[in-house]
């Protein structure tokens, strides 16, 4: 069901965000093939893929919502829950694994007081693990947003976090 902007209560900033998304969808010619690109963009704009955003994408690409939801849940990089300001991805690729990724995770769990896939109560950090960020030469490594930090150990974790707090 397509609702008008006013009906769905999209005003002000919200309406502007949806407009930005619509502009992107237009550059992709509303093509159903572009679903993954559109979801990437939507996540950039809204921070995560809310239900109403998924519904919006479905209607604009003329796809069943089930198909959009199916794709959004299939790929690891799409999030259906809100994330912290910074996303910490601890690499658990093989090189990092044999060089102590578990120690890095344990020290982050302790420092932040959250478990994997959780967000700190101040909304600053979300802790995740990553499959392999391809920085095997620097193992163990972690990524905060797009910055890669190599050869991390529990002490370095504290130092790195301080720069983001």
């Amino acid at each position, binding site marked *: 069901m397509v609702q008008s902007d006013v009906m769905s209560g999209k005003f002000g900033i919200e309406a502007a965000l949806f407009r930005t998304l619509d502009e992107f969808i237009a550059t992709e010619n509303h093509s159903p093939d572009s679903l993954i690109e559109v979801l990437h963009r939507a996540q950039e704009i809204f921070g995560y893929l809310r239900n109403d955003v998924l519904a919006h994408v479905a209607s604009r690409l003329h796809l069943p919502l089930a198909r959009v939801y199916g794709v959004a849940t299939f790929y690891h990089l799409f999030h259906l829950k809100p994330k912290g300001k910074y996303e910490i991805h601890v690499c658990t690729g093989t*090189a990092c694994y044999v060089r102590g990724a578990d120690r890095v995770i344990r020290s982050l769990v302790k420092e932040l007081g959250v478990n994997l896939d959780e967000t700190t109560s101040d909304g600053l950090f979300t802790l995740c693990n*990553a499959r392999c960020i391809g920085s*095997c030469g620097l193992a163990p490594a972690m990524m905060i947003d797009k910055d890669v930090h190599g050869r991390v150990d529990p002490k370095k974790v504290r130092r790195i976090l301080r720069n983001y707090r």
Partner: protein
Amino acid sequence: MPEFKRLHCFLCMGQACVSSGAREVRARLAEELAEHGLSDEVVIVETGCAGPCVHGPLLSVWPDEVLYHQVAADDVPKLVVEHFIKGRPYTPCLITEPGGDIIATQRDFAFLQRQHKIVLENCGVIDPERIEEYIARDGYLALGNALTAMTPDQVIDEVKLSGLRGRGGAGFPTGLKWGLLRQSPGPQKYVICNADEGDPGAFMDRSVLEGDPHRVLEAMAIKGYATGADTGYIYCRAEYPLAIRRIEIAVRQAREYGCLGEGLFETDFSFDIELRVGAGAFVCGEETALMQSIEGKRGQPMPRPPFPTQRGLWGCPTSINNVETYANIPWILRHGGAAYAALGTERSKGTKVFALAGNVKNTGLVEVPMGTSLREVVFGIGGGVVDDRPFKAAQTGGPSGGCIPAAHLDAPLDYESLTALGAIVGSGGLIVLDDTSCMVDVARYYMEFCVDESCGKCIPCRAGTRQVYEILTTICEGNATMADLDRLEKLCLLMRDMSLCGLGQTAPNPVLSTLRHFREEYEAHILEQRCPSAVCRKLLTFSINPAKCTGCGVCARNCPVETIHKEDGERRYEVHQDECIKCGMCFDVCNFGAVVKE
């Protein structure tokens, strides 16, 4: 008078060097050169990955070929004065060999000298964001020559002659694959470049795309001409933002220069490339799943036949190659298939890039002729195991591969020998394991990966990976019996034979290979409830060596269950075993090595 540049500074801007601070070095270098009025004489060139990642940030100065490693921004002022003004190398940033010899130039650095570079010939040598530099290294010459002086069949024959086999894992002969697409009827055909590189521990494809992206574009256009396709897709994983940016820049420049687009090299051949970015799913590296993903769907594999060359992207004939496979093509056409076939072994031709990582001294990218021994790669080029610990095994091929134990260090690295050992060449990830790795735990690690990454479409893989993972967990926790070992083996063979795609078919490999070479480790866990490498936590005990304990108390403060105490009046701490949950926190935080795990 033409501009004269006295020196060129090649600064590696590969991901590893950037995260070690290459950008700060770059900024400082520009400032210092300006300060000393050298900006017109000394040029800074930002290159892609130069290979020896552990030494980053790397700076090499030409024409002297002096190689500096682990350069910090604070080294730069002194380096500029010493080298660029006084004309002598700045010694604190030179590499020291284990024996104490100082390496001044690239020519003396064994890590680089013992390699044979074809795929990586431009990585670390050119600025990947400038097409002019690629062209100056004979870039797009092979494409121009193919379009103007060769028929499509001649191109395919040259590739067949080279003996090149797919570097994406399966080792399918590339020339044959191209011939199949050429013969497949249809007005619209596609070629795809697989840049999904999902094997954890592999980073060859990333480095090629970051360091020499035009090479891949050129090869895709050549393949388009040879097979009758006018459109190419590059499917790159989203985890590689720098590679994505460089592909975008390269495609734009190639269009501007007439190397992509309509009527290339004044012929009537047109070819263009689109980039598609993944969203984090290992299975999307599998070719049929990859095509589903390009079409905007869940990346679930399809049964073959029909093969992609018959019915691929949007139902049209399609052919997929890996990044490294493509990266060989321009060289092969410039030097001839025979020159390529002269390298390597009987059935594995040319070179292979390995991503050397894990517990090895010189981590980084290594390109060697096929058939080079594992010993040469790990010890000759890699410099041996970190802290000179004993070499236990090399893991190749990631979650689809297996282990090569120390007894086979002299095995040649090629498709046939590795398959015979129960491992695979795979995409080229090569992880060095020492005696601190437990092989049951390693097998369990890969199986956990496969549980997570199984797409769920077929039951042998979806349920099999989970069951195998659970058996491995009971073994690691010391709760298994020898009957479980039989069940494990049976299940593995069943998955191998019954799964729909390569993911499920190869997922048992790490288990089967560790069972084959390290069965005694499995048995120690089962029969003696002992982990010989002291990795499996449930089988360990943590205690404090009173001779080393200083009584600082950091372990007690960090213990989550508060089970580390000291008696009144005592100086030293003790772990009370009944409540210990074996989390290992005390071991990690102790600054004096006083916590013993065994």
